[in-house]
């Protein structure tokens, strides 16, 4: 039995392994020599894991066959296609008052970037550059959190990544303006795969506001396989918003690994709207006392979309506080998946963890799967989770109808309010306003909500 599976794994990962061998020969593209062993570890981890199937507990509801069936064409050199600065305006957050890094097919496009007067010592730029400089910060933290990672896509990213953002805030630095990372895939070919890789380091007492958004030019099946590592030191505050708005045929796999120190604060808002199949993996390690971690996500799907949210919150030290709020609205034949796991390690006493997942199905063909899990090994903790799935409350609809609104209007209002719960928690004003508008427009596109007749 196991032999067959191993064989299948090998067969399936063959094109990936041979592509890696080719990369190995190209030398230059593999980046500086100290990075190569890390890449190598990535590909061997990938060979070991293989792509997950729905028999894998963590992937039960997300069948990635459409991705594995695509030809594997990793983008290893910058695209020739140029995007004019004016063309940027069609993407979300284009008008945002922010420092901006633009990546085209996973490579930094310096002409499109906009970085002004950074605080002293702060670095906002390309990761590939930093890897070459071999600075201490990069060497200390790069690929520092992915050991033993079970996710094959992360391993694949480690093997093939080319570039991504590097953000470094020295001790006590406060970044007033948000930093916007815009990832654009040209999608010039079916199976084109980009592997953006980001590293974010916030030293003690620093403060960072970050917006990350993904979009594409052509609506064809391509894959974005992104990995972000953040290191949030003692008493640092990071607010991070991620908007996934890839075209409807594209695939999006993203992983975030964060490590938090004492009394730090991390707020993460992943918003998933686009892509055919998308998965957002979050693994946060709460490695200090008195810290706060908020994961606040929204997924809106229609058509045949699938949006998967997978997270592990690891309470490794006492007195930690974590909150997870995830809302989903599914229409037509789309599919929403939520998997949340709160792990409270032995001795992590006085942990306060809350997890909420709410889902609305607008259509009879939509599906939702929720797995809110608690794994607790300490006795003096407060942990709760709640999950709901269903429709809007009849009472609320009745209340509005009794006041003269018709049914479709009442339903629209309540659905917008449901999504608004998540958007409201974003603290960056300008980002929130823009997202509010985007979420509104997106919901208006939902066929059931758009219906005006009863």
């Amino acid at each position, binding site marked *: 039995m196991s032999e067959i599976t191993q064989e299948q794994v090998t067969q399936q990962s063959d094109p990936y392994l041979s592509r890696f061998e080719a990369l190995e020969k190209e030398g230059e593209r593999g980046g500086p020599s100290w990075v190569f062993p890390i890449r190598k570890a990535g590909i061997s981890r990938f060979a070991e894991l293989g792509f997950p199937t729905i028999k894998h507990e963590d992937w039960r509801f997300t069948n990635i066959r459409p991705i594995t069936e695509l030809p594997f064409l990793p983008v290893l050199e910058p695209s020739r296609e140029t995007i004019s600065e004016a063309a940027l305006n069609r993407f979300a957050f284009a008008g945002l008052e922010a420092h901006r890094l633009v990546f085209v097919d996973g490579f930094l496009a310096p002409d499109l970037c906009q970085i002004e007067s950074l605080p002293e010592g702060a670095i906002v730029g390309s990761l590939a550059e930093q890897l070459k400089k071999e600075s201490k910060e990069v060497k200390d933290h790069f690929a520092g959190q992915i050991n033993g990672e079970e996710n094959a896509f992360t391993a694949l990213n480690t093997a093939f990544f080319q570039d991504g953002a590097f953000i470094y805030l020295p001790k006590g630095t406060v970044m007033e303006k948000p930093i916007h990372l815009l990832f654009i895939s040209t999608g010039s070919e079916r199976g084109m795969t980009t592997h953006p890789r980001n590293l974010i380091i916030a030293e003690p007492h620093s403060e960072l506001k970050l917006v990350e958004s993904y979009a594409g030019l052509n609506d064809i099946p391509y894959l974005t396989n992104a990995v972000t590592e953040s290191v949030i030191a003692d008493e640092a505050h990071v607010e991070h918003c991620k908007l996934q708005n890839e075209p409807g045929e594209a695939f999006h796999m993203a992983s975030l690994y964060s490590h938090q120190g004492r009394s730090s604060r991390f707020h993460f808002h992943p918003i998933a709207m686009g892509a055919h199949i998308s998965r957002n993996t979050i693994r946060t390690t709460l490695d200090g006392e008195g810290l706060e971690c908020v994961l606040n996500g929204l997924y809106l799907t229609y058509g045949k979309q699938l949006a998967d949210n997978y997270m592990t919150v690891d309470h490794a030290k006492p007195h930690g506080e974590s909150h997870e709020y995830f809302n989903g609205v599914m229409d037509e034949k789309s599919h929403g998946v939520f998997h949340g796991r709160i792990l409270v390690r032995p001795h992590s006493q006085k942990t306060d963890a809350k997890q909420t997942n709410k889902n609305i*199905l607008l259509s009879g063909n939509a599906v939702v799967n929720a797995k809110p899990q608690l794994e607790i*090994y300490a*006795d003096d903790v407060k942990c709760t989770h709640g999950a709901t799935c269903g429709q809007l409350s009849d009472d609320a609809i009745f209340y509005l109808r009794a006041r003269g609104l018709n049914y479709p209007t009442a339903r629209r209002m309540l659905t917008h309010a449901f999504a608004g719960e998540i958007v409201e928690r974003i603290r960056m004003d300008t980002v929130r306003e823009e997202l509010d508008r985007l979420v509104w427009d997106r919901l208006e596109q939902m066929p059931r909500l758009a219906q005006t007749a009863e």
Partner: protein
Amino acid sequence: MSKASETIDSFVNREYSYGFVTDVEQDSAPPGLNEDIIRFISKKKEEPDFMVDWRLRAYRYWRTLEVPTWAKVYFPPIDFQSIVYYSAPKQRGEGPQSLDDVDPKLLETYEKLGIPLKEQERLAGVAVDAVFDSVSVGTTFQDKLAEQGIIFCSISEALQNHPELVEKYIGTVVPYTDNFFASLNSAVFTDGSFCYIPKGVKCPMELSTYFRINAANTGQFERTLIVAEEGSSVSYLEGCTAPQRDENQLHAAVVELLALDDAQIKYSTVQNWYPGDEEGKGGIYNFVTKRGLCKGRNSKISWTQVETGSAITWKYPSCVLVGDNSVGEFYSVALTNKYQQADTGTKMTHIGKNTRSTVVSKGISAGHGQNSYRGLVKFNKNADNARNFSQCDSLLIGDQSGAHTFPYIEGRNPTTSVEHEATTSKIGEDQIFYCNQRGISTQDAVNMIVNGYCKEVFQQLPMEFAVEAQKLLGVSLEGSVG
């Protein structure tokens, strides 16, 4: 604090009071499992041919399976060839015709366990089917029940006297292809209870089965089948104990419930198999498949379980709600202490319209106990207006224990609603202080708080069982507060 921890120690070290062994001559099959053993079991029980075929099919299917590993329980691999699959107290002569013919030693055993079979006849209240290792040793009240057309007997007896009913219903709720342990059970089950409630009859008394493992190295594989015809209702109780031994013994039972139109079945379990010693040595592996099928309209199946024993408990009493307006309920208290592990919960599958289900699960972990709730609530596409409410709470006592929750929710219908809530907490020092201040000892306070915490579930139990369950919990918790 030190006083409190002393009490905890005494609780944790409390001995299992049902750990004695009854010395009766056993009639056993040689250890191991093959087709001959299955034929031997079937022949020994003089079963009709269809049963042998069914068992063999199950066995052949079982051989293609591997031991599942997904549960959050850890145990060394089980050697299925070293288990004795058939063991029965030797019968004298023809076998018992009535309770008077039953070996007095066996009756004594049940008396020690607090189930006096003879007295029960006079006390009138609960009809008992007593299962000793692989066979049923006696069933009380059969005559009285027969007057109303109720069949309540061991499944072996049912295979003799009502083969058509058994053939019609066995495996309809839990097919032999269901899972590893259900397949094994289908191949080798030796006894269990059979209960048939005819149309429109309300069973006048509680029916109950008492399971006892006695022989060493044996596995106990019993199969219970309850069929409630249209408009009938029944309440059924199950209890179990086993001697104290250093080896682990396997108990893999299957329970099938079938409720037709307007029928109601209430199934209550107080499980107190030997849990192993302080170091986690010995104890029963309780790997059980329990499922109820609400086939008819307006039918109802309710599971209540109090799980305090077993080294490992791994079971999910489930309801498949096929009939429109049918109702499924699951109330559970699972306690793990010492090195016990429990991975238990329920599955509620909503298929019919307007189906409703309620899940209330209370986990208590003390000592090194690991307690997991794992549950599935599933709404199929046609389950219009189905509702579920789930609540799973965990109480942690001591910092070495663990409590885990793994719910799965699958929705495919926009008119349904499911609410799931879970909390984890410990007994607060302030709560204990409040009680101490009013002259209640720490131990009593803990018992009070835990009993209050489990009240919702105990309320569902029939009266006698509720009292027993409360006591059992008190015993199991003694000394566990710090």
